């Protein structure tokens, strides 16, 4: 199985550690890297400094995005992303958040989120989430092409 680059956007260090641990337990089919605020995500996806080198900072095949982030929120990142040209607008985004509010859920879908997951309460549930995520997104889903330089 080829290695899929997955971008995790999570500002809370504890949540980050828990998510990383659960995902590492279930799979070696992906490479997860983390950013912790909305401005960084936009710089990364745009390939701005210090992220110009795509060898070191590959374009992710999908993004796991928290909503509550310092500086630009997850919603603002999503809105920015869906307005981009040259295929970046297609990048699949899965919201991973602690909010169960229907206003947040609806807003995420209105802004073009591909899926909305609520962070589970226990480590076992988080591993189950990681396992379903792997089976579905990494093994079955077909990803779009994002940019001319990484087109198939």
């Amino acid at each position, binding site marked *: 199985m080829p290695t899929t680059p997955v971008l995790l956007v999570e500002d809370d260090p504890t949540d980050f550690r828990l998510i990383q641990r659960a995902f590492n337990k279930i799979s070696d089919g992906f490479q997860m890297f983390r950013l912790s605020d909305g401005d960084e995500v936009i710089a990364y996806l745009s390939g701005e400094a210090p992220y110009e080198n795509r060898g070191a900072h590959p374009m992710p095949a999908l993004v796991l995005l928290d909503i509550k982030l310092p500086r630009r929120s997850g919603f603002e990142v999503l809105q920015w992303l869906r307005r981009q040209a040259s295929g970046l607008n297609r990048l*699949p985004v899965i919201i991973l958040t602690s909010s169960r509010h229907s206003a947040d*859920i609806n807003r995420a879908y209105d802004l073009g989120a591909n899926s909305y997951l609520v962070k589970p309460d226990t480590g076992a549930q988080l591993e189950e989430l990681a396992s379903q995520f792997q089976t*579905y997104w990494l093994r*079955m889903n077909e990803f779009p092409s994002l940019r001319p330089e990484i*087109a198939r």
Partner: protein
Amino acid sequence: MPQEILRTILLVEDETPDAMLLLRGFQKADVLNPVVHLTNGDEALAYLAGIREYGNRTQYPLPALILLDLKLPGMTGIQLLQWMRVQGEIRRIPVVVLTNDDNPDTIDAAYDLGANSYLVKPGNSADIARMVQAIQRYWVKLNEPPQLVMRAGQQ
């Protein structure tokens, strides 16, 4: 979760053998959610809009998930996605494209029109059953669906 009302899944698929395999897959995966199977894009549009015989949302509830083939008689899956995109709350409903077409241009077009995910139908029934199970575990059990107001568009 168990006390929750089981939300409807809409399957839009014109090929009878494929639909049979998918529906059987749902049974095998113990999917208790009602699955509404429609065989063309115009029917799917009427169902989602709540028009014609589909005016009663109690009887024909808005789905929590749509599994959409692209090659359909009449209105295509791509045209249905296009239509959904400019609707009100209907545009929020997650759409998983489920098709034989693995052309990268088609995949890109589907995502451009807001498809939530894109799956290529496997060739054999065991793999289809596995795919249906993964769909059920991910989209029915794990994913939070949008909140939709249950009313017909034309009432």
